[in-house]
């Protein structure tokens, strides 16, 4: 599986009607057609009738164009924005519990500090830390932490918004061509 932020993954923001079962519809579509989801995030928007999915898809499993078109066949999908790296701000949150015995504790703390992370919980020999950043940065942080021994890790998956003033190709229901 590809990590978010790597070359072969694509980020799409999918605006959906906030209706029962819509998460299952999206998940089902990916499963049925053999598209890989790298990460998936869903939350309501300012319009309470709509939710937005941020989905990072593995573009090696299928052409992104085909994935987008298939998603659009779901009646509840209203708008899809393809978020390419130059046009978006992307963030991800990581929580990790790491081995931090006396000998290496200060090095772990230093690492967290360099990455502007935070210490969330402390126990003898272990630390639970958090860090927020671009998917790349989160990848680096996780890789460096793993040298000390990761006990448990949870990543939020990518959330993304278009950069202010940047046009983002948005596909709307009822138009085959992307509109900007």
């Amino acid at each position, binding site marked *: 599986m590809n990590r978010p932020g790597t070359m072969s993954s694509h980020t799409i923001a999918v605006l*959906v*009607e906030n209706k*029962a*079962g819509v998460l*299952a*519809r999206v998940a*089902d*579509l990916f499963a*049925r057609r053999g598209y890989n989801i790298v990460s998936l995030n869903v939350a309501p928007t300012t319009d309470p009738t709509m939710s937005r999915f941020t989905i990072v898809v593995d573009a090696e499993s299928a*052409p992104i*164009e*085909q994935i987008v*078109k*298939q998603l*659009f*066949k*779901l*009646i*509840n*999908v*209203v*708008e899809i924005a393809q978020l390419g790296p130059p046009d978006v701000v992307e963030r991800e949150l990581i929580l990790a519990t790491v081995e931090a015995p006396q000998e290496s504790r200060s090095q772990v703390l230093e690492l967290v500090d360099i990455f502007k992370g935070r210490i969330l919980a402390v126990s003898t020999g272990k630390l639970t830390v958090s860090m927020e950043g671009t998917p790349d940065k989160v990848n680096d942080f996780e890789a460096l932490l793993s040298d000390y021994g990761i006990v448990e890790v949870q990543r939020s998956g990518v959330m993304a918004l278009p950069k202010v003033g940047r046009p983002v190709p948005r596909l709307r*229901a*009822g*138009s*085959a*061509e992307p509109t900007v």
Partner: protein
Amino acid sequence: MTTPGQRIDGASALIKSLEAADVEVMFGYPGGAILPAYDPILDSGIRHVLVRHEQAAGHAAEGYAHATGKPGVVVVTSGPAATNVVTPLADAMLDSVPMVCITGQVALPAIGTDAFQECDTTGITRSITKHNTLVTRAEDIPMAIAEAFHIATTGRPGPVLVDVPKDIVSPANPDAWFDWYWPTELNLPGYQPDMTPSASSIADAVELIRSAERPVLYVGGGVLKARGAEALLALAERTNTPVVTTLMARGAFPDSHELCLGMPGMHGNYTAITAIQQADLLIAMGSRFDDRVTGKVGAFAPGAKIVHVDIDPAEHGKVRRPDVSVVGDCRIAMEQMLTRLAEVGGAEAVADHTAWRSTLSGWQEKYPLTYDREATGELKPQYVLERLAELSPDDTIVTSGVGQHQMWASQYWQFDHPYTWINSGGLGTMGFSVPAALGAKMGMPDRTVWAVDGDGNFQMTGQEMITATVENIPIKVALLNNSYLGMVRQWQELFYDRRYSEVSFGRDFPDYVKWSESMGAVAFRVEDPDEVDDVIAQANEINDRPVVVDFRIAEEENVYPMVPAGGSNDDVIVDPSQQSMLDADRAAGALGADRRAASKESQR
């Protein structure tokens, strides 16, 4: 009459909504959860056809939709009834058949408790419906039904399922009462199918069409869905372009027309298959590059540019990347192409296809569909179908099951009218023909409807002859009885060394004549070729009862031509009587020269 604003209960509102959606006939089967909705059916003008198995309700609705263009309607109860309609829903999904299916569901408080006859109907049918929905408030019923009909019939048509919990249609429940309304506006912000192609895509398509030297119109079921047969005829004639009609499109272009090449694909005829292989332009019109047409995709029409016209954007580039993608309704697209052609100079502006046409007619002469007509003592299925087509009215509607008989019917019936051929192409559902014939006859009561069926198929849904008798739907069944699961036997013969595994049905059971008679049909048995005409004539005379003719055909007849699954269309196997000639032609390189030149060019 309930007027807007008048109090109404959910059950009455459900039936009233169907009336408001102009439903004339529905196919169904009652049961616990849907019981409340069956009461107002008694007072409704909608004709309800009580089938003998819910699967048949679904296929009947499909047959009705295919024949009339109107959505087919199914009403069944929860749990096992909902699972029984799974097959026809999947069938309608793959063949883009407009259908609205209403399923009962256990009462809202019981959902999720594994209640009696509960199943997750919307979950089970999610991937085999265009859309589905669980209604949770009685007052949402009219909106849900209106949306279901809109979604089922617009854009690329398909099945829509509406799951209705029992308590919201129970008049005893005070919460199931509301003020009647019929929505004038729908709330579907994510659903606006694009009917009209972009002008630039039409112009680009016309440019390719004008310059093509060896074009083929590769016509699929989308042309029929778009009511586009007339526009197709005009476009083909204006551009002098030969036409192949896929299994889903038989009848969309008249077989008797000089430009018609017939069916391509796994059991298509040599000329249709080879025309595609050697074309320099394929105009894919409402067709979807199905694997049964393309064979090995990488070897499909290797020298052809592609113009793909389809209303579903996701079909464009799914299998083969088009050179020009025309997203929109096929009829509108073809009309616009004709307009554009006129603008740029009409028929004179199109390249000359004389050489191409004469190549094609050469192949047609050399490699026509054929079978051993001289065989004695055996009843050939192809002969039966030729006679049936000849002796039945010109506008007869033919439905079919799935198997060898389906392929022979598609090959040997001459289809000269749209909406006269109804079959299960995408899902390949055995048991389709008899219930589909019921639906077609309900929709087109004045037309002769013949179900061409196989013995295996008839044993799956033959019980619906009871429905035909009891509901007075006089369909006719031509049972091409080879006492085998013939299509499977053919594969075992050709690809498994004649090791016949679980395909023999035997001649003796059931006795189709007795069985059919017990279901109220007039039944005949035909074993001798000399009896064929007489029995068909008698069967065609009967209009007040269903008819079944048990044609005892040759047991081990094979369907040819054949492209082995996954093989290249270039390696099509023709009838044994033609194969050595074809092998010689191939060895001499007499075929395919044009294309090799063409593909070299396109590589440059």
